[in-house]
């Protein structure tokens, strides 16, 4: 069913880009992370290949957000290695800005800049970081805004937009940097079902265009449909991993219980 609904997914499975390209975009190896005495990541290993869409699921508190934040060097790890787009995240000499040019991240709470319009939110990084002129950045902003279906909202401030619209602007803001990898942390959790749909549609389009993505999500149907890899995290570990089909046939009682509760 998913192959019919999403032809590019089928294509990806025919020519598995991840194994062919060799180096994965993201590779976590035996990552340990504690906040004080609280062990949050307990030996997490994970590979995500080019064009892959990995969905991380799991109970609240299982370490999903922390894993994403470690990938983007927002948290430092105590043990293990993380490689992202050729950057060694665990290396103390990591060039964080170079990493952030390659990786976009979208948060549950949008985190748009409230003093800037949608368009200005998007223009900021391309002008500051990539040295674009205002005019170039404005064209780019208009382009990514229409990509997420919000061309007519360019001059609105965040507070004038709905939650779903704000989240789409946040996605557009990341896309404007032309990242090689996109991270999404429960980007629809603050939205009501109707607005959730419009954000998921944007993400599905991105997936279809071949963007490498890691998303933490509670949307099981979406994970099953779009993800090439589903990762179930439990107590700071990768408990079970597989394709979307894994959700129909859980191997561990924990995942079975989680799906039972979640659906």
């Amino acid at each position, binding site marked *: 069913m998913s192959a019919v609904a999403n032809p590019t997914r089928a294509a990806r499975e025919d020519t598995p880009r991840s194994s062919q390209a060799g180096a994965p975009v993201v590779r976590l190896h035996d990552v340990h992370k504690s906040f004080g005495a609280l062990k949050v990541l307990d030996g997490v290993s994970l590979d995500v290949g080019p064009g892959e869409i990995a969905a991380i699921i799991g109970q609240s508190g299982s370490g999903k957000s922390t894993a994403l934040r470690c990938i*983007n060097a*927002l948290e430092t790890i105590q043990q293990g290695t993380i490689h992202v787009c050729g950057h060694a995240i665990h290396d103390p000499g990591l060039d*964080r*800005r*170079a990493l*952030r*040019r390659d*990786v*976009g*991240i979208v*948060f549950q*709470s949008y*985190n*748009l*800049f*409230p*003093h800037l319009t949608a368009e200005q939110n998007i223009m*900021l*990084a391309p002008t*500051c*970081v990539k040295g674009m002129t205002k005019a170039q950045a404005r064209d780019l902003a208009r382009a990514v805004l229409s990509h997420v279906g919000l061309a007519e909202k360019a001059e609105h401030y965040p*507070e004038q937009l709905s939650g779903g619209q704000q989240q789409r602007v946040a996605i557009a*803001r*990341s896309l404007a*940097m032309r990242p090689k990898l996109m991270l999404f942390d429960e980007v629809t959790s603050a939205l009501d079902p109707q607005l959730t749909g419009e954000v998921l549609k944007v993400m599905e389009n991105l997936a279809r265009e071949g963007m490498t993505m890691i998303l933490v999500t509670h949307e099981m149907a979406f994970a099953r449909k779009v993800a090439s890899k589903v990762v179930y995290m439990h107590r700071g570990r990768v408990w079970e991993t597989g394709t979307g089909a894994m959700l129909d046939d859980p191997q561990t009682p924990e995942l079975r219980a989680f799906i039972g509760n979640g659906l």
Partner: protein
Amino acid sequence: MQSFGLAHVEFLAWAALWTVGLSAIAFVGGGLLGFAVALLRVSSNPAARVAAIVYIQIVQGTPLLILLFLIYFGVAVIGFTGVPAILAAGAGLTIYASGFLAEIWRGCIQSVPKTQWEAAECLALTRWQRMTRVILPQALRIATPPTVGFLVQIVKNTSLASVVGFVELAQAGKLINNSIFEPFTIFVTVAVFYFALCFPLSTWSRSLERTLNVSRR
């Protein structure tokens, strides 16, 4: 002996200009210095943060009167005699204002949610760009009402500059009183001058607070 009249009011008005001038010096000087200290206070460098904290604590813990004495007489001790009153008063009030403005602005900068820093960081902005393009514009909105409110404190505290021989509004009142001794009339007039300077500021501060609160939603 002449009684209180138009000439005295004119003299007070002229002195009020010095009060305004001294307030302006203190606000601009204190603002620049205080802004620098506030930036140090929130910097990523621990030594800079500690230095800023120590500075703020010392300034806030020293009465303005003592600060003015220290500058006026202290500078003489280290060899510079005859410091002009305006310089001593301006320097003292600048330091005083910087200590308080730094702390007010630190609070405003830190009240911008941490997620805003993170979002800016994740867009590959440098620390300076995050500060100037994302954090400060938001902190500015928050900072405006308390800053204008503090301006009122500066205006009132310029009255202490008389101790180093600076003739501003309060000192002018004392001088007039020394010659005609009508303290009630004189100091009510002086108070009216202060009120005329401060009332618009505090009204402005309150209305800023209201409009910023409304447009926040």
